[in-house]
């Protein structure tokens, strides 16, 4: 999927048309009165009847809905006829982050809209990737890399009035370039994405070097004239002072860790506690009342232990909080958090796996239905294979996504811009 670099929407359409002075369409050529009148009417109608597509991916969607709600009421602009089918929509308000997997669908939806069609990019994510510009392997860095965008509304999310202002901007645009110019799509951003911070710094440095060379004489002159100059001192603003407050510790509920461990030791004598060699009751008590038992389990005990924890009446850990993994570079650790909804105690456990291409571990799906997706997630992100899993497919990423992104050695310069700081 080469979505990050360019868009399949490159085909027909006169590209490279220079925008007008204010960034809008170039002004219409002066023609006869009738044509202009028709243009005016059509532009008026189109700009006042923008039916948006029901499209929202994340946070901005809520603000988009709030724009439609009573307090801001986009019906005043004739926008309330939100259509679920792109065939009847005129406008996509890109409300929320566009990720690579969604990108192809977005293009499909955009293509399925009949023209003339307009796009408002709402919020930082759709304008540039926003908070997900750096380090994210899945976010499209600006929706204008996929489809042409007419109006950019910055904010995170922009408040409803800001969106309404964007809509008014769009109306202005449509009125200006009404009938004929609506055939011209706005350009798609084909520029390769780059680390903007470093790039800006580099450009600045180059300019700065030249500037400094030009200033050298003046600086020396200044030094000579003001030998005592120490520079302007800007005072720090006094920050409010806060007191140190002791932390209130609430004891963990249910069976105390020592008791659980003692019980478990009778079944699994090899069981260890993470970061606590040769654990005993005293050592565990020293970890404080908040401590939740964190067991290290050998691979062969993994399934029987969890089975026991779930079924034994003394533990009744019937609730899988989460199952995840950590890449320690030399090994993987699969981490399981269990909770007893009845007794209130938690048990964490972790099972070390070799750092192979695809380490294997028995699946928990027979014990916890919840484990199904958690294990798929772990497979997706870490490449850990769970034997006996009924449907081990990637959960979040496309099937052809290269590699497992949460591994520490994951590199993909075609997708990821590394944070420079």
């Amino acid at each position, binding site marked *: 999927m080469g979505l990050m670099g360019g868009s399949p929407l490159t085909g027909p359409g006169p590209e490279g048309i220079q*925008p007008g002075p*204010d*960034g*809008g369409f170039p002004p219409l050529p002066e023609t006869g009165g009738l044509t202009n009148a028709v243009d005016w009417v059509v532009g008026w109608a189109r700009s006042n009847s923008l039916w948006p597509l029901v499209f929202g991916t994340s946070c901005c969607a809520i603000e988009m809905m709030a724009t439609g709600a*009573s*307090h*801001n*009421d986009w019906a005043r602009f004739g926008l309330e006829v939100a259509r679920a089918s792109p065939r009847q929509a005129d406008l996509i308000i890109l409300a929320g982050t566009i990720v690579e997997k969604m990108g192809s669908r977005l293009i499909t939806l955009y293509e399925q809209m009949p023209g003339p069609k307009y796009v408002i990019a709402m919020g*930082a994510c759709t*304008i*540039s*990737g*926003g*908070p997900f510009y*750096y380090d994210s392997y899945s976010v499209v860095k600006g929706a*204008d890399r996929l489809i042409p965008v*007419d*109006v*950019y509304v*910055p*904010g*995170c999310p*922009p*408040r*409803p*009035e*800001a969106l*309404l*202002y964007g809509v*008014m*901007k769009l109306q202005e*645009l449509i009125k200006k370039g009404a009938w004929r110019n609506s055939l011209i799509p706005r350009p798609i951003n084909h520029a390769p994405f780059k680390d*903007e*911070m470093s790039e*800006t*710094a580099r450009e*600045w440095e180059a300019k*700065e070097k030249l*500037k*400094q060379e030009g200033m050298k004489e*003046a*600086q020396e002159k*200044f*030094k000579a004239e003001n030998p005592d100059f120490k520079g*302007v001192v*800007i005072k*720090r*603003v006094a920050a409010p002072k806060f007191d140190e407050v002791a932390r*209130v510790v*609430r*004891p*963990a*509920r*249910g*069976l105390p860790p020592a008791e659980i461990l003692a019980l478990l030791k009778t079944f699994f004598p090899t069981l260890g506690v993470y970061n606590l060699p040769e654990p005993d009751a005293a050592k565990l008590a020293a970890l404080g009342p908040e401590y939740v038992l964190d067991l290290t389990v050998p691979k062969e005990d993994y399934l029987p232990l969890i089975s026991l924890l779930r079924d034994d009446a003394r533990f009744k850990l019937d609730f899988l909080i989460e199952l995840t993994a950590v890449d320690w570079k030399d090994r993987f650790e699969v981490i399981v958090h269990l909770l007893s909804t009845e*007794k*209130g105690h938690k048990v964490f456990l972790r099972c070390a796996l070799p750092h192979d291409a695809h380490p294997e571990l028995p699946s928990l799906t027979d014990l916890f239905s919840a484990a199904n997706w958690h294990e798929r997630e772990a497979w997706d992100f870490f490449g850990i294979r769970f034997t006996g899993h009924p449907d081990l497919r990637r959960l979040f990423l496309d099937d052809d996504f290269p590699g497992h992104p949460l591994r520490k050695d994951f590199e993909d310069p075609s997708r990821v811009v590394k*944070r*420079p*700081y």
Partner: protein
Amino acid sequence: MSEETPKPDATPEVKPAEAKPAAPPPPPPVTYPRSAGVTMAAAPKASLSRFLGDAFGLFKGMNVTMRYFRKPSRIVTREYPENRGTLKMSERFRGQVVMPHDEKNEHTCTACTLCEKACPNGSISILTTKNLASKRVLGAFVYRLSSCTLCNLCIEACPFDAIRMGHGFEMATFTRDPLDLILNKTEGR
């Protein structure tokens, strides 16, 4: 299946929360008292009186919408472009990062780059230059509104009150370029 009469009308049973004061010293761990077993109720028996009651409920619902219709005073719409004159943002509103300048067109930024480091999105680039006195001062405060999440971390990080959250929100543009701003009007002192 329980033998109890089903009661789908009733709000679900509520179990009282065992509010326990968490005062130090910590009490010994206790098994937490739980609610009794949960029953699954059977489908409600249809009866004429039930049906009529429900049907009357529909009219009550119509009364709710009618109340709004009857009273135009309950309309809450703020007419945005018309109310521009009176529109006041709340004091803490985070619209965009601005750099206050005094009457001499000077600001208080020292190019310490704390905000740059605090920014989680890389929206700020502090570009330094050397002034006449060869001091390292702010050359350009590049602020990329296009990627700013208005999270306030830069403002909190700034020890000099050089930047602040502005109240503007009418920032929509036709292209992306105007969204990359340089906040300082003059170089640092």
